[in-house]
């Protein structure tokens, strides 16, 4: 066990994963600082790779550009960013997915500015929910370390070949130290096969990657993205099993249900709010309330099927969002409503909690439960944390 921050956990897992590709085409990363992920790229920059190069570039846009070029030439690639940095990177974020390149990026969720705010909010990574990136939201330092490792296996799987964004809450996870297990190089070498990118640049077979396509070929391209996305839940399960064999511990999957079996009310949460909500659920259960929670970790592809099954018998569902899509409410709430639509007529209420990095404390979650319990119908998203 080692006492490390979420950033350290991410930097370590990415670096040993990069080193694990030393007998193949190596590792190349483009890096650029932004609070609160800077420690991650600093960790990568000082890692003594046997066969690698870390390129400190002039912008996030170029950091992803370097990763794209390196991946197109067959290397393992990764980077990290946050908030407005992700926004600046947007165009190349899209390219990484549309070129089917298994780039792994740790996104430390930070409020988009202005007004300038460095604290936790998922609005940054959720901007990219429709860009064919797999998105995983972590709840703790151990989850960051293990999910980052698993992300390489998932991204580089030939059935998938898509980039993965591993997300954690700013400061709450990124800068908080916890005692966790970190992967050794020997374990990582066993877990990760050499990175193989079948469509990499090849002198023997000169191809133009990214030229013009007409509508029919573009449609085929999008359909193939859809097929790859649909493979993700099963491939994720497979690599979770491999993970346990190598590392001897479980890594959380697409969704985690907690005390939902006989629950009439279910809270749906993500990231670090999950750990607080779990404690509150225990308290309410002690009082005899039939209440449970589901943590969504895999946001893209959205695990609608699993959620439908887990929510089948609940009467009311409360979704806590640490993000705000202007004009519509919380993004997780919309996704949950969309996936349950047409199944059963049940109440799904959204709550905007911890927007802009505000604390989501047990009291917040209790208030959400009380509101949900007395509701007879769902309404617009409820803003929490506004001083009366």
């Amino acid at each position, binding site marked *: 066990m080692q006492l490390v921050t979420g950033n350290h956990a991410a930097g370590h897992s990415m670096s040993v994963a990069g080193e694990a590709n030393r007998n193949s085409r190596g590792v*190349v990363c483009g890096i650029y600082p932004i609070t609160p992920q800077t420690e991650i790229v600093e960790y990568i920059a000082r890692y003594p790779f046997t066969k690698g190069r870390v390129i400190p570039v002039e912008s996030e846009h170029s950091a992803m*550009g370097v990763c794209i070029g390196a991946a197109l030439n067959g*290397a393992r690639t990764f980077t990290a960013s946050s908030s407005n940095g992700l926004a600046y990177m947007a165009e190349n974020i899209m390219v990484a997915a549309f070129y089917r390149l298994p780039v792994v990026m740790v996104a430390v969720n930070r409020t988009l500015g202005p007004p300038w705010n460095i604290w936790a909010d998922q609005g940054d990574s959720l901007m990219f929910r429709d860009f064919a990136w797999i998105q995983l939201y972590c709840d703790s330092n151990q989850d960051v370390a293990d999910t980052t490792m698993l992300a390489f296996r998932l991204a580089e799987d030939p059935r998938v070949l898509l980039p993965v964004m591993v997300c954690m809450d700013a400061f709450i996870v990124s800068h908080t130290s916890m005692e966790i297990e970190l992967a050794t190089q020997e374990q990582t070498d066993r877990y990760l096969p050499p990175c193989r990118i079948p469509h990499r*640049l090849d002198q023997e077979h*000169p191809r133009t990657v*990214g*030229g013009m396509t007409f509508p029919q070929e573009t449609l085929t391209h999008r359909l193939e993205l859809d097929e790859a996305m649909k493979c993700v839940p099963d491939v994720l399960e497979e690599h979770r099993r491999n993970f346990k064999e190598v590392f001897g511990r479980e890594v959380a999957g697409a969704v985690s249900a907690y005390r939902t079996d006989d629950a009439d009310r279910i809270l749906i949460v993500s990231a670090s709010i999950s750990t607080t909500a779990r404690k509150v659920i225990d308290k309410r259960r002690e009082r005899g309330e039939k209440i449970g929670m589901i943590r969504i970790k895999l946001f893209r592809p959205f695990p609608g099927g699993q959620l439908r099954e887990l929510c089948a018998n609940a009467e009311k569902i409360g979704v806590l969002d640490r993000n705000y899509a202007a004009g519509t409410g919380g993004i997780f709430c919309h996704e949950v409503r969309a996936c349950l639509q047409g199944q059963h007529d049940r109440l799904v209420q959204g709550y905007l909690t911890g927007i802009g990095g505000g604390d989501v404390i047990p009291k917040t979650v209790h208030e959400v439960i009380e509101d949900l319990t007395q509701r007879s119908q769902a309404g617009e998203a409820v803003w929490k944390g506004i001083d009366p």
Partner: protein
Amino acid sequence: MNAANPDSSPESSMAECLLRPGNTNCGGCGMSTGLTMLGRALENESYSLVIPACCGIVTAGAFPTTSYNVPVAASTFASSPAYASGVAAVNELNHDPDDKPGHVICWAGDGGTYDIGIATLSAAAERNENLIYFCYDNEIYGNTGGQRSSATPTAAKTTTTPAGKGEKKKEIIEIMAAHHVPYAATLSIAHPEDFRDKIRKALEIRGFRFFLIHSPCPTGWKTEPAESIELVSLAVRSGVFPLYEVFNGIDYRIQAEPDGTDPARYYEKQKRFSGQEINLQTVKRNVQEKQARLKQLAAL
């Protein structure tokens, strides 16, 4: 291609071409001629191209076909030096110890170089990445129908400067020289030997190498396609587009002195300058100032 090689058949020669037959580029396109010359200069070399949004990537044609006979990665508009840095880094990590790594070449227009890509270009130059950057400069956003860029010369009419551009063209070679890159040079498709020699010279240099090609665009310049080579030849002879090179940002060498040709002969052939008589006086003065400055630098 190689007359000295008795095995050289038309088919094998074709296989050596960078630009295959059948692309859809405009007649008189300076970029197309530049690509052909680039391919000849790089015969028997292993290389990949990184091409941002520009006519250069449209040249490839529609998937699954491609006009390029080497691996090509299309990049976003501003990103070709960043993508190329990634490609080059992997080449360096993987090349055969007995051989040099394959060359990585950016092929970008003036919009992607002078404007949207300049931060990325500046950063790659400052890091002295081991790549060769070509800007084929047609002095407009040609692919979108001819809008002004910061490479558009004074007085030129474009769709976004209908009365003629008021500002001066950026001096991109001097910008690159200010980065202390090992090699920066201008190329003219009217001077094929100089074109080839400079590229061969650059292949022997390690680090960031930059080339500026004066690249006529008959569609945007409103010129006769058949006169493209004549135009750029006039540009060199009149001093509008001097042929020179800069080593390490300080050592300037001039390849072609102006022969007294009146710059007006270059401007008069282009309808983009028509009706711009007053501005043309300024343009001529700019040419003279540039020549004087270049001579000073070369004399240092």
